[in-house]
């Protein structure tokens, strides 16, 4: 019975992927892509990777979907003149994708059975971090450097978006500019955020011991903030504001600072002294959650569109 469900899921994913690649209307493809992210989340759940499933649904479906929809809305006015990819280009891309997929499939099938794994080592070292969720331990202790670099990349992406603003608007506020704010949206933006913030804090907090964590919690926070901005209850902040920039870099900076403290306290970069490993990790996660929420929210809000006030 579960095999039937899995096969249906795989068939559905393949069909949806084909639809996204083939459909002519961009917006149609983006909406299908959001659905694809949610379905892929279901797939990860079937593989018992709840952390990945949550991240896929939040980032792959949610944030990427909104970013693409906004990009499409910006491109639409000039689309008639825009050059589309030629037939040959599409064939080339299809062949390249097929080759990558075939290579990945070969690599996965070539694994010896059972596949080599570090899972037992990760599980044995878990008590020394004070955490209960091995995924969080990998992200913030064993492979902390990767996580740190990831967060820095997010900020670089935001700088890339900001730099699309013309010089005289630099430091001004981005604008989500809905033409009309329908009443139900305003109602939702007033009702949902308290619950959303609670859920985000919960996701961050259980991340230490159960599926959840900074990225998932941060995305929910960002979604609530965007909802409030979209309903025009609060304007988007000016990007030159010091408090905005401090929240943006707070998480990575704290991470880096504690990483350097590791030289003095635990004999290595990004090493935690065992006795206070958990409070340190939870502290870093709290700051990272806020930074991620601010970064994702501002990424969607886009470059500055009004000049900074004096």
């Amino acid at each position, binding site marked *: 019975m579960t095999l039937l469900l899995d096969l249906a899921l795989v068939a559905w994913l393949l069909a949806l992927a084909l639809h996204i690649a083939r459909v002519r209307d961009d917006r149609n493809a983006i909406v299908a892509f959001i659905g694809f992210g949610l379905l892929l989340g279901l797939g990860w759940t079937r593989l018992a990777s709840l952390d990945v499933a949550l991240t896929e649904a939040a980032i792959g479906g949610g944030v990427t979907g909104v970013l693409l929809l906004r990009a499409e809305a910006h491109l639409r006015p000039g689309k008639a003149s825009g050059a589309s990819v030629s037939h040959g280009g599409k064939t080339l891309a299809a062949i390249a994708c097929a080759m990558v997929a075939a290579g990945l499939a070969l690599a996965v099938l070539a694994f010896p059975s059972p596949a080599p794994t570090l899972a037992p080592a990760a599980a044995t070292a878990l008590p020394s971090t004070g955490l209960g969720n091995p995924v969080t331990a990998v992200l913030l202790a064993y492979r902390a450097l990767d996580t740190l670099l990831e967060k820095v990349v997010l900020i670089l992406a935001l700088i890339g978006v900001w730099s699309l603003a013309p010089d005289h608007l630099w430091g001004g506020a981005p604008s989500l500019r809905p033409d*009309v704010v*329908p*009443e*139900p*949206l305003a*109602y*939702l933006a007033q*009702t*949902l955020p308290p*619950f959303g913030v609670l859920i985000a804090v919960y996701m961050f907090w259980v991340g230490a011991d159960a599926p959840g964590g900074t990225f998932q919690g941060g995305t929910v926070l960002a979604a609530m903030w965007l909802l409030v901005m979209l309903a025009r209850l609060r304007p988007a902040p000016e990007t030159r504001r010091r408090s905005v920039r401090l929240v943006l870099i707070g998480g990575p900076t704290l991470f880096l600072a504690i990483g350097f403290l590791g030289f003095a306290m635990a004999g290595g970069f990004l090493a935690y002294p065992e006795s206070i490993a958990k409070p340190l990790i939870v502290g870093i996660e709290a700051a990272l959650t806020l930074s991620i929420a601010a970064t994702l929210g501002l990424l969607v809000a886009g470059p500055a569109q009004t000049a900074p006030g004096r």
Partner: protein
Amino acid sequence: MAPADAFTLLFVTAGAILFLAGTLGLLRFPDTLSRLHALSKADNLGLGLIVIGLLPQCDSVTAGLKLVCVWLLAQLSAATASQLIAGAVYRRKSGP
């Protein structure tokens, strides 16, 4: 079969049938408003029945409460989305 399991089976099946009917309506109904009607019926009643059916299977009261919260949040988002889409249809019909 334990009565709790029979209860779950009954309600989850009823919920699944409602989802099926809602999907059929979404695909077959002629205009946007009737399709919305089919969709929100499936979302509200179908999900509600499934949640009620799963309640006897919960280990703790908090797990049950979480399930009910999921249903309430889905209700809120489904109701808002339906209103937004219906509003857009109405505005398009009456013209800017």
